[in-house]
């Protein structure tokens, strides 16, 4: 286990990461350094390989070449759950929730897994007061406290998106990768979700995928532009918004969809 995160050091990095399915290259020599406490946005047109990149970093896909390090430790060969236990969490673009559990049960499960007590079959779950209270605190912080006894599949969609984040937070991540946290949420409500994201501890390192440029420019301190599986450019919001190349491929002149 690595020590407490120190500002200015690299929390998560990808070095020369490469992935292809047959002849289709989905990640081409990706190099990214996420400093501790970062608020990075990952943008790019549909099919640019943004979700693939998150899958590669979290171990849900195995790269053909390259290296992923978490807090200086090489995690390239590690399984997703081992990376989660070392502090790398993610959310999913398409809700990947426990539909038949309620939020309290789901987040309590994640807390139990983190505490290493999820294998205890001899103990009543209610005996783990600390774990349940911790789960409830996370839910309350994300404004899910009043909905925590309702079955997940019955929750309004926006609440489900917040539960995605709550589940990831229950693993106490050092680095959190958010795959379009407000995907499918009406524009007026997406601000609410990003307020929650913005309110997360500034020791937490964040990378998020988002299509809404207003949101990106408002919350990100640094933007990475991905096109065709490769990093097209990266820089501050000001640099990206004035970059003529980015404007061409992404922001306007060449319309997508």
């Amino acid at each position: 286990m690595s020590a407490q995160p120190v500002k200015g050091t690299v929390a998560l990095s990808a070095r020369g990461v490469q992935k292809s399915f047959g002849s289709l290259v989905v990640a081409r020599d990706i190099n990214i350094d996420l400093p501790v406490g970062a608020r990075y946005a990952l943008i790019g047109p549909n099919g640019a390989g943004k979700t693939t990149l998150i899958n590669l970093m979290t171990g849900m896909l195995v790269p053909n070449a390259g290296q992923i390090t978490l807090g200086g430790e090489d995690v390239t060969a590690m399984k997703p759950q081992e990376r989660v236990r070392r502090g790398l969490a993610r959310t999913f673009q398409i809700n990947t929730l426990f539909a038949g559990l309620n939020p309290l049960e789901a987040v309590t499960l994640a807390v139990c897994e983190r505490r290493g007590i999820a294998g205890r079959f001899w103990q009543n779950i209610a005996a783990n007061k600390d774990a349940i209270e911790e789960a409830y605190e996370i839910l309350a912080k994300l404004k899910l406290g009043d909905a925590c006894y309702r079955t997940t599949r019955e929750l309004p969609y926006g609440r489900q998106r917040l539960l995605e984040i709550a589940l990831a937070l229950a693993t106490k991540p050092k680095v959190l990768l958010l795959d379009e946290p407000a995907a499918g949420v009406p524009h007026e409500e997406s601000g609410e979700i990003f307020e929650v994201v913005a309110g997360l501890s500034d020791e937490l390192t964040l990378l998020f995928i988002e299509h809404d440029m207003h949101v990106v420019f408002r919350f990100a301190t640094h933007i990475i532009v991905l096109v065709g599986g490769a990093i097209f450019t990266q820089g501050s919001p000001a640099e990206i918004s004035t970059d003529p190349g980015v404007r061409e491929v992404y922001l306007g002149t060449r319309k997508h969809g």
Partner: protein
Amino acid sequence: MTASDPAAAMTPQTYMQSLSRWRVLEIAFWLATLLPFWLFPTYLSLASQIAITALFALSLDLILGYAGIVSLGHAAFFGLGAYSAGIFTKFVWGEPFSGLLVAALVAGIVGFASSFIISRFRHLTLIMITLGLGLLLHEAANSMSWLTGGSDGLQGVSIKPVFGVFKFDLYGYTAYGYALGILFLCFLFTRRLINSPFGLALRGIRENFTRMPAIGADSRAHIRKVYTISAIIAGIAGGILAQTTETVALEVLSFERSADVLVMLVLGGAGRLYGGLIGAGVFMIARDQFSGIAPQYWYFWIGVLLVVVVMLLPNGILGGLSKLTARWRRK
């Protein structure tokens, strides 16, 4: 929508506590299992068959209803337990509880060993693997006739009295009391397991297998564990059958037994703890009645029952009942 707002009345912890509280219906159910002693003393051997099968169905519910692992070869562990208890009783010692311990041990070891294969696969592949393992064991027992008696069955199993006092009688008083007692103990264990952190993890696997690694869970380790526990309980069920009938037929390892227990669980309602128990009762009583009417064709009626229940009550008899009571409460 719930009628009352539970959030106002309870804390998260008391809510979790309330999930495992004993309900009146549950207590009534267990009291009702004592009725055959007085009401149907001539049916006690059927009652003990039901208790044994219910325990077997409970073991399948753990993996199927809670972890979502479909098995078509669960009779492998039932049969292993039956043969282990039978052989131990015949050649080593006739005390019943030590026989059950041996049955649990053997089934548990084989269950643990095969769990390393089981935990790597899902869906159709898994069904085929469990089916294959079941057939494999069936043929192994058939060919090892020097030990198992082969197709003639294992004869000459004579069991000592329970606690050295209660002899196994012709009417089945001891047999039913013994089977029911073990069933209840195993049920208490399973009930606690379901309401434990581990039980929550199993439901997590069932609800969303892909999310589990993303919350740091090692699903395969969980599956290995529950599969082993399930094998142990199935082995105990088989052991009771061998002891109470004082014989072991090759049929304990048959594909039919694996399929029947799956049917019972689906009939009763999987993932509801009592589904297997109710399903076993309905199935065994139906079989007893139907085979009285038409001995050759009783499976026909089981088929009809299965089709009707699955079409009308997708979550089994218990699922249908809980839906009914929910509707009734809303009115």
